[in-house]
């Protein structure tokens, strides 16, 4: 524990069903990864939301800078042909 007054922040990922991916569902404070797992269990999975939990300390995540959104994301906007929107998905295919 580096700072005794403020526990570090952890990002929580929960897999809701086997076969699906883990999804980010929020963040919480904990002094270490074990405690983060237990806290995540209590905060995010007590209504039967999950079958697996990942925790990652937030400082280990490298995030893109919102100032760079222009060069990173905008060029994709006028290239509709990159989106698979021209065919109908069969109903059986879920979670696309």
């Amino acid at each position, binding site marked *: 524990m580096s700072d005794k007054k403020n526990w570090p922040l952890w990002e929580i990922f929960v897999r809701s069903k086997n076969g699906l991916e883990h999804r980010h569902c929020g963040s919480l404070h904990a002094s270490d990864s074990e*405690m983060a797992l237990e806290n995540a269990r*209590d905060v995010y999975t007590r209504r039967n939301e999950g079958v697996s939990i990942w925790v990652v300390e937030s400082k280990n995540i490298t995030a893109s800078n919102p100032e760079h959104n222009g060069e990173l994301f905008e060029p994709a906007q006028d290239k509709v042909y990159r989106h698979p929107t021209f065919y109908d998905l069969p109903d059986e295919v879920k979670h696309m």
Partner: protein
Amino acid sequence: MKNENLYNYILGIADNSLILGQRLGELCGHGPTLETDIACTNISLDLFGQVRSYFQYAAKIADDNRTEDDIAMLRKEREYKNVLLVEQPNTNFAYTIARQFLFDIYHLAFLSELEKSKDLTLSAIAKKCIKEVRYHERFSSDWIKRLGDGTEESKQKMQEAIDGLWTYTDELFHQTEADKIMVKQGTGVDVTKLKDAYYSSVSDVLKEANIQMPESKYFQKGGKDGIHTEHLGYLLSELQYMQRTYPNMEW
């Protein structure tokens, strides 16, 4: 009542969960951190869920038009049969954890035996509860180790809490008349047989937590026979307030 011993026996089990659940519920919005606050109230809700199963069964046994709520809410202090340990106040987080830990170790062992009861309802309730209690035990044991093996201050507070609550541990293994009859019938758990394993499990965790196991041999009992510490009256007045003030209210 036809089966008064069974009725009293169920109450003896249920009241522990009811009173401890109420104590933990007091922490709602007052836990030391958001996460531990949610954890404590989660455990509280688990216990209240268990309590409902027991009191529904007790109401069926009593068969005198009382509902589960009547049994839970409308008894007098002397009619509650919980052990003294669970009614002790949330003095500080160390006390809350120590009380939980000292009860969880017992609760887990008790339910493992109750699963084998000849009474199929009690056995089914025990099977349902034990998963929850396994988590409670993991949660409280972890915190005993964190606080005991933490800072100078947390260690001192944890030691004080264990020392302060130790006097209530022996009562867990005390048998009432109803207990003895239920054991004989194969319905109840012989708690005297759980004692050695209990103290050895407690000792293992305390050792890992660098907490001294108290040596005091002075123990208090009485709760199982309805003789409580002064704390229970205050707890009950809060628990029963709504039903006493607005009789038969529902929402």
